[in-house]
């Protein structure tokens, strides 16, 4: 794979990249509103997106390039255990069906831009809101870094990532360019840029998957052969651990891990700031519920994609770094020009979420740290300016992270990020349904969850790593191996409930709740729901 540059693939890839760059900059003019200097405009696309745009945006946002590379890579490495991403994305939709519309309603009525805004309004606690904001930013940063890792994987396979002997500048130049362009159009167009580019990204991804899932099995002699070969590969005992490499179906011992990983990840997904940003940008409450019914299409795609991991084994792809398995499979199986399309799909697939994530993190900083703690009287124009600059800083941070540290560091932090972000669930989702929890109890529960999760994850060793070797560990008291995030979450809830009883008994001040029950079911058109939405100019269907 390090034998020269694949010119055709690179050309195709550059073509698509240029196309989305132009789109990214033009997006600023797309459905432009009169008052463009508010955070609602830059950071939430004017809260104007209908069902289909929201669908593309959320799809582009949740199913990232990293997902496309990492899920099949996990299957390639260990078989069945890596497939948990599918049940995870199955149960996430019934889950959000219940609470996201409420968040949408209350956010529109009170002009909330972030989850922390809501938490502050609901519990009257800046401390709790700060905890949620900091957790969100911390969890998002490594996620952005991983998107850049995804681009790097593609560049490596195309031969432009450079070998070990090229100097660092030449080696990282393509990544720097991609990054610079991303930063520039996010800065100028805000959320509109990824929304528009998401169309291209998803179309490309769907085409690539459809072709891959039909074309590659035909070349490899059908699924029977693929799974037979994969089964053999997994049965081989790894000399380092003395255990087989993996299995085609999870053994008894792995089932708890599988289920808790799926559940924990599902609970965590919509705690991530970037998921919420995409959600709040939708125009109507209905849009969200409708989306929970059509988003699973992406899960189907993810399942098919996961199967590519087996195909990589059957096709005899041998890579040291599992991340490269799928790009290498494409390179081996497809004609050059189509490999280029596939690589473009992955690379653009990294740009969309990276843009949304940096916007989401910037919004959190501006609203819940800058405005709450540094400059309470910031005007909307100022907020927007700060947010734009922070979105740049966040991306630079991610870039430095990727370029200076080992890739495994980013992956470790991403793993921790998932555990951390899950700890904001009680405050956010709990808050959407009840005001019973006490704000101080929520902070305490959050802290316990964060500490337990971090310490537990630190203590997991793997054959290759001493710490952060995985996300599963024995659940205290049950004895089964389960997802650390889930154990931390349970602890978090227990602490929150117990302390709520205690704090209520001693009559600790509750804080003021600025919301009323009607806020949680309000829809566009109801009185009080911000009517500054720009008239939908383009005839977007919904």
């Amino acid at each position, binding site marked *: 794979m390090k034998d020269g540059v694949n010119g055709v693939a690179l050309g195709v890839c550059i073509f698509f990249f240029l196309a989305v760059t132009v789109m990214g900059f033009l997006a600023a003019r797309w459905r432009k509103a009169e008052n463009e200097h508010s955070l609602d405009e830059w950071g939430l696309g004017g809260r104007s997106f209908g069902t289909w745009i929201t669908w593309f945006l959320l799809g582009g946002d949740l199913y990232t390039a990293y997902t496309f590379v990492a899920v099949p890579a996990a299957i390639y490495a260990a078989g069945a255990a890596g497939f948990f991403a599918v049940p995870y994305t199955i149960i996430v939709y019934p889950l959000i069906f219940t609470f996201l519309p409420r968040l949408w309603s209350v956010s529109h009525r009170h002009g909330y831009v972030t989850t922390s805004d809501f938490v502050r309004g609901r519990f009257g606690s800046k401390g709790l809101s700060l905890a949620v904001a900091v957790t969100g930013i911390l969890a998002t940063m490594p996620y952005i870094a991983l998107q850049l890792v995804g681009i790097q994987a593609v560049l490596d396979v195309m031969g432009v990532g450079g070998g070990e002997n090229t100097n660092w500048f030449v080696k990282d130049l393509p990544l720097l360019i991609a990054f610079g362009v991303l930063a520039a159009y996010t800065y100028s167009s805000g959320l509109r840029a990824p929304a528009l580019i998401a169309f291209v990204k998803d179309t490309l991804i769907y085409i690539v998957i459809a072709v891959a899932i039909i074309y590659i099995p035909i070349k490899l002699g059908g699924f029977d052969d693929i799974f037979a070969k994969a089964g053999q590969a997994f049965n081989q005992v790894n000399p380092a651990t003395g255990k087989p490499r993996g299995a085609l179906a999870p053994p008894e011992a792995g089932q708890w891990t599988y289920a808790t990983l799926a559940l924990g990840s599902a609970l965590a997904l919509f705690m991530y700031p970037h998921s919420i940003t995409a959600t709040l940008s939708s125009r109507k409450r209905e849009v969200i519920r409708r989306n929970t*019914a059509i988003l699973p299409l992406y899960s189907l795609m993810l399942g098919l994609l996961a199967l590519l991991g087996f195909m990589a084994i059957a096709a005899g792809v041998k890579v040291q770094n599992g991340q490269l398995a799928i790009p290498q499979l494409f390179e081996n199986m497809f004609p050059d020009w189509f490999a280029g399309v596939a690589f473009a799909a992955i690379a653009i697939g990294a740009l969309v979420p990276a843009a949304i994530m940096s916007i989401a993190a910037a919004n959190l900083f501006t609203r819940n740290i800058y405005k709450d703690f540094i400059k309470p009287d910031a005007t909307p124009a100022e907020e927007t300016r700060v947010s734009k600059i922070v979105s740049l800083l966040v991306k630079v941070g991610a870039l430095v992270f990727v370029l200076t540290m080992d890739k495994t560091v980013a992956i470790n932090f991403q793993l921790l990020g998932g555990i951390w972000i899950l700890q904001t669930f009680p405050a956010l989702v709990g808050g959407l349904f009840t005001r019973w929890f006490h704000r101080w109890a929520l902070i305490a529960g959050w802290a316990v969850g964060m500490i337990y999760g971090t310490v537990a994850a630190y203590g997991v060793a793997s054959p290759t790593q001493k710490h952060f070797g995985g996300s599963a560990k024995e659940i205290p008291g049950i004895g089964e191996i389960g997802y650390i995030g889930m154990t931390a979450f349970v602890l978090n809830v227990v602490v929150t409930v117990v302390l709520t009883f205690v704090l209520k008994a001693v009559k600790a001040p509750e804080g003021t709740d600025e919301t009323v029950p009607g806020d949680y079911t309000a829809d566009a058109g109801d009185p009080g729901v911000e009517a500054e939405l720009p008239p939908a100019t383009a005839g977007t269907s919904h």
Partner: protein
Amino acid sequence: MRVVIALCLVAPFVAMLWVGSYAKIDPTFIGIPFFYWYQMLWVLISTALTMIAYKLWQRDQRARADHKGGAAE
């Protein structure tokens, strides 16, 4: 009606978290082990269930709402 909606939404959780019920190779479907095609099938089933829940919920809302004519579409 709300009970049915709740059932539609809870079913995928039960099915997917009960890993023991589908952690096996046979029967295979066009060569794909049961474990994989069963979960992919559940993507479709849960989509259908969520869709039903959505429709029922809409009807439920309409039945309860008095003034929402325009907003509920």
